[in-house]
């Protein structure tokens, strides 16, 4: 289509964010860095999040994402993802420095989950508000791939864990895996369209 402008690819940006996020969490879990080293650990996912935001912005500017529902999703999801990185950093730092107990410790632990719950809501709104049936079908396929990927990996990991073959992982890994699945879903959509 010579009269059409190609779209920026969101897939690599999403995958980079997911990989750097998993990497940062792994580094934190293994070494428990603090201070400057903690900031350095969080720098990679933060930078890739900015890159992802830039891809989304370019996509809008090129006019290839003129869809109202997708604009609304980006308007909701990008601040929520930035809030998540900030909340995670805040929770880790306050937990290390103040060592809170009781309800304050619970509230602090739940803090990073709140923006992620917001992202789930934003994804749901995207499906509800998407008026373009083809784009909605792409979103649904992407979500189904993500769900399937998350279920397969958690199922296999769960049984490996039951038989003491792998270490225990926190439950929030299900969400991280689902997000990685979204990246796979984006790739599949890009390959098939």
């Amino acid at each position: 289509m010579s009269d059409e402008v190609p779209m920026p690819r969101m897939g690599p940006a999403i995958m980079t964010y997911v990989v750097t996020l998993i990497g940062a969490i792994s580094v934190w879990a293994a070494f428990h860095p603090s201070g400057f080293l903690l900031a350095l650990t969080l720098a990679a996912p933060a930078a890739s999040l900015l890159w992802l935001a830039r891809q989304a912005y370019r996509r809008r500017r090129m006019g290839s994402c003129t869809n109202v529902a997708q604009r609304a999703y980006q308007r909701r999801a990008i601040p929520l993802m930035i809030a998540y990185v900030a909340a995670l950093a805040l929770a880790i730092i306050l937990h290390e420095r103040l060592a809170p107990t009781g309800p304050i410790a619970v509230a602090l632990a739940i803090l990073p989950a709140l923006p992620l719950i917001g992202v789930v809501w934003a994804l749901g709104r995207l499906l509800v508000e998407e008026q373009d049936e083809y784009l909605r079908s792409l979103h649904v396929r992407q979500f189904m791939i993500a769900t399937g990927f998350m279920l397969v990996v958690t199922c296999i990991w769960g049984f490996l864990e039951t038989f003491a073959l792998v270490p225990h992982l926190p439950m929030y890994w299900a969400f991280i895996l689902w997000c990685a699945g979204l990246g796979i879903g984006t790739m599949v959509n890009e390959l098939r369209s």
Partner: protein
Amino acid sequence: MKNRLKVLRAERDWSQSDLAAQLQVSRQSVNAIETGKYDPSLPLAFRIASLFELPIEAIFSND
């Protein structure tokens, strides 16, 4: 399903974006329908037929 969307669009000298704007769908949708990667719903097929002032079977064929 096969369709004659690309030919009909070319006859009118419309770009994919022009057609997408008239159908109130994304350009990706027009591209996916034209290349046979996506079969439109019945309401969208009726909108396409109405725009080109043709019956649905003159645009889409089941082979």
